[in-house]
């Protein structure tokens, strides 16, 4: 009796340990986040006003607002997603759904992606400057910055999307194949709608990464703190503004914190929006 109970007891202890570790992790990560967020809020909240959101900066960002940066950030993100989403979705489909016909290409692409994920952002920045800005002649521009960012978020976007696609039960694919449905129909009518949670996860991670990026943008979308008139204009992203204020402008800390707060709010809104849109799409199809 006592012998047979002994392993049971250790397992219960392990279970309790697991529960404890999980709770501790959640609390620790939560606290860490609150600590960081608290520091940002404490410093930055007082600076935020409608004028801050709507005005142009002056005195190197110590006064005025961040409106041009907001516009530039959204435009850069827009370009980035416009390029990265189709490219990422397509590649993820290739990796997840064409495993038999395109095995070799798939392996090559997957290897490339893991490699790409480890390329430091500053190298992306220098590369973007050399390739998009100079070889393609885009100069310092929102387009060039968005393209560079697109290259950067691709690995995250693709691997997450791929995981999402793999999470779709194989029985759907079998069912569709047994009905003689074309791959196109199978993918667009059945697989993709079912993969929406994974796609959102990828999108959210990608947007976060794109909004947070600094080093890759300094050399591509640039430093100009005016309203951009077109995608060919240089525009300063919020993350660069934050970097400049906190590292380069004496007395810019509070404004940097306020800008960071705005950036986080923006990200939260975009994440909620993406979730809602995707849910609606999934329901409608």
């Amino acid at each position: 009796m006592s012998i047979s109970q002994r392993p049971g007891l250790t397992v219960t202890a392990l279970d309790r340990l697991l529960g404890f570790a999980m709770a501790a992790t959640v609390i620790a990560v939560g606290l860490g986040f609150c600590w960081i967020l608290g520091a940002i809020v404490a410093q930055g909240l007082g600076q935020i006003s409608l004028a801050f959101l709507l005005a142009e900066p002056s005195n190197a960002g110590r006064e005025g607002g961040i409106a041009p940066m907001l516009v530039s950030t959204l435009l850069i993100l827009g370009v980035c997603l416009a390029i990265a989403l189709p490219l990422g979705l397509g590649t993820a489909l290739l990796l997840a759904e064409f495993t038999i016909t395109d095995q070799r290409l798939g392996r090559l692409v997957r290897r490339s992606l893991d490699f790409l994920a480890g390329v430091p952002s500053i190298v992306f920045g220098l590369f973007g400057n050399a390739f998009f800005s100079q070889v393609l002649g885009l100069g310092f521009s929102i387009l060039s910055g968005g393209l560079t960012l697109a290259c950067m978020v691709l690995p995250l976007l693709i691997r997450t999307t791929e995981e999402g696609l793999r999470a779709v039960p194989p029985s759907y694919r079998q069912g569709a194949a047994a009905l003689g449905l074309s791959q196109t129909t199978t993918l667009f009518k059945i697989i993709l709608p079912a993969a929406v949670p994974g796609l959102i996860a990828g999108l959210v991670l990608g947007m976060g990464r794109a909004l947070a990026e600094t080093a890759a943008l300094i050399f591509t979308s640039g430093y100009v703190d005016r309203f951009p008139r077109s995608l060919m204009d240089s525009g300063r992203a919020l993350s660069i503004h934050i970097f400049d204020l906190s590292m380069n402008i004496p007395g810019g800390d509070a404004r940097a914190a306020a800008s960071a707060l705005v950036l986080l709010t923006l990200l939260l809104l975009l994440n909620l929006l993406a979730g809602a849109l995707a849910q609606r799409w999934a329901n409608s199809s």
Partner: protein
Amino acid sequence: MKKISTIRQYSLGTVAFLMLGLTACAKPPQAANSEGIKLQGNIVLTGSSTVAPLAIEMGKRFEEQHPQVRVDVQTGGSSRGLADTRNGSADIGMVSRSLKPEEGDLTAHAIARDGIAIILHSENPVAELSPEQVVDIYQGQLTQWSDVAGGPTSPITVVNKAEGRSTLDVFLKHFDLKNSEIQAQVIIGDNEQGIKTVTGNPNAIGYVSIGAAEHSIGRGEPLKMLPLDGVSPSTTTLQDGTFPLARTLNLVTQGASEPTAQAFLQFAQSPQVQDLIEQQNFVPIESAPLAPSTP
């Protein structure tokens, strides 16, 4: 500027803009400004991140006077400014140091001066260091504050600048040091990183731009500047030339500039921007001594 790619730029820009449902507005043809000088076009400045905020403010004021002109300021470091000026992708480079002899193909236009001060945490009771002591500390021969008159019993944290930075060059030259001799505990990039490192560490010693340090002290941060050769560092002593540790901020060009860039260079060296220079914690060039500051 960059006529070759203008058409491509606009067409590409337009296509991309349509994609996002916005409209690109083409620039209206030239118009004479109030002074009768037809200045128009883009001026691109790239280079030092120290100069960039000042250049942006100058650019804004210049644009107010010449509505047909756009001044785009990009950063990326002094070396980028030199390279871009040489290869033509920038009209003007920004460099936070004097030009080296091998850079004689470029013309420097000094716009402001910046001093370098040794800083300590304000809790540190040490009030002055002799040049020899500074050298010993940076060479790792003095490692405890207690070795210095009035110092607390704690190890010294030496904060140095990263290789290639112009503040490092000026500092090394002044104290006749080689970078490989320096035994640092922390190596930093920008001024603000140095200030934050020292304000967060009561045992640290570092050196940063005087303007930045003055600004931080003014905002009540726990920081103090040490006098050098008996002269306390401030924008005033820098301005009257008594403070020895200083560098020049330059705009550089190659060959003859276009009229617009030429006008901007003149503007940046004129008294019209003096308040902007002071606002960014630098010292205007006219009143500063022209002779090199270091022996």
